[in-house]
């Protein structure tokens, strides 16, 4: 299974059906996420991804997989007796100050266009991802699984386009949901399940706009909403976001 397969699977689980391949949703998924910054390797000229956005324009880079080649370059040996201050050291080492992009370490594989990745598999266009798998267009995720367009996610699973989803599963367009499941367009939930357009709740289920529904009626209304979401995503590659809902605006 590759990252695109994982996206398709996540859409089936979260949205009730497929909406198309992952790449076409890049603009939608990256709208509220810190994305990798593209720089160029000083050794090979190849593009690479960097997670820190504010390196000086004149900073030099290599790709992390060019480390061996970098270390074959002659390194300045200081005359220790001539070292007077930091500036004299930096002067001697000037040519060696080259940063790395595409840093992928630990038990990681199938990582593309990403930086600062550790112990993660199948990661695409993301930064600062740790101990995760099947993550794309995301940042600052740890212990994530099938995560797309998310940030600040400790242990999210099957989560799309959300921020701060602590140990939550199956969600879409949420902000700050803690140990919640099956939440759509929600903000500030704790230990809730099956909520749509719901805000500031704890230990509740089958809510729509904070109003309680019977499970079967809730399921019908949820199916209707998800059909609308899928249709818009298929046609426009975008939907109104939780940000739009909270601000009272929509695209």
């Amino acid at each position, binding site marked *: 299974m590759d990252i695109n397969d994982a996206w398709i699977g996540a859409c089936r689980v979260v949205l009730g059906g497929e909406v198309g391949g992952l790449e076409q949703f890049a603009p939608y998924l990256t709208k509220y996420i810190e994305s990798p910054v593209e720089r160029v390797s000083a050794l090979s000229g190849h593009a690479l991804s960097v997670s820190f956005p504010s390196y000086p324009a004149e900073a030099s880079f290599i790709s992390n997989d060019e480390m061996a080649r970098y270390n074959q370059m002659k390194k300045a040996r200081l005359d220790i007796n001539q070292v007077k201050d930091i500036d004299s050291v930096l002067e001697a080492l000037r040519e060696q100050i080259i940063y790395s992009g595409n840093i992928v370490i630990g038990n990681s594989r199938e990582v593309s266009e990403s930086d600062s990745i550790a112990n993660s598999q199948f990661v695409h266009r993301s930064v600062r991802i740790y101990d995760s798998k099947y993550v794309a267009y995301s940042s600052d995720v740890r212990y994530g699984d099938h995560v797309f367009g998310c940030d600040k996610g400790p242990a999210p699973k099957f989560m799309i386009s959300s921020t701060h989803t602590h140990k939550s599963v199956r969600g879409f367009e949420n902000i700050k949901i803690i140990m919640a499941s099956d939440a759509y367009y929600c903000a500030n939930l704790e230990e809730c399940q099956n909520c749509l357009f719901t805000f500031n709740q704890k230990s509740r289920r089958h809510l729509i706009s904070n*109003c309680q529904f019977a499970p079967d009626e809730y399921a019908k209304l949820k199916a209707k909403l998800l059909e609308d979401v899928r249709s818009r995503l298929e046609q426009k590659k975008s939907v109104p976001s939780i940000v739009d809902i909270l601000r009272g605006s929509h695209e």
Partner: protein
Amino acid sequence: MNKELEEAWRQTCTIVLGGPLGPMGHYEGWLLSSTRAFVMQKSAISQRVFPLGAFKRFLLTREKVVDFDEAMKEGEKKLAPDEARALTLENAGKKLAALTHYSPEVMVGHNVELEQCTMVASSSHCYKTVYLAENKFCACSTWPRESEYAFGCDIAFSSQFCIKCYNSSCLKRCFEVSNGVNCSDCYFSHNIENCAECMFCFNTKAKRYAIGNVEYPKEEYLRVKKLLLAEISARLEKDKTLALSIYNLGRLSSAKAKETHEKL
């Protein structure tokens, strides 16, 4: 700021830089630079001020943000069942306007002596720190996790006695290190792994007593280290900031080279 955290700062500076600096308050601006910080946000209801993580979805909805207690009160509001049934993606923004104040604050687990922190789990004696879990004595940082005595760091996992370290894990007694793993006593280094007693090392592993990726006899290294730490401490004591950082080493050395060339 509590006395214990101030003492932790003093100890960390002594261990990392060779001697104490002044009160941590004098260095807040420097410590917070190069970290993803937070903004102080007024509640939309009470005007109470609290820290808000400077993350896009939070910032774009900040006019809807309230504190935690206010949010739970807001949660008592709801739409009538027929209005809820009629919600669509088209009309939700308008129809839900009265319900959509929310709190981004999180505090889980047992927390002690936190000041101006937000998104917190099981931490103690922390100050101006965002998105933290299981830490002690951290300040002016973003996403420390299972760390102690971390100041001015952005992503420091399982680290101790670190000042201005970034995207790193398992560091001990480090200063201006980015993308470091399992390192100790390292300064101004980037993308290093299993290194100890290193300065200005880049893209390397398993080095000891090294400057610029070249290893030296222990006594020679320690002599240079002492000299450079004294200079760093002197600059910090005088200016309460340090222009040099791991992220601009190349630029400053280039600038100095250009200045030298022009003088010649």
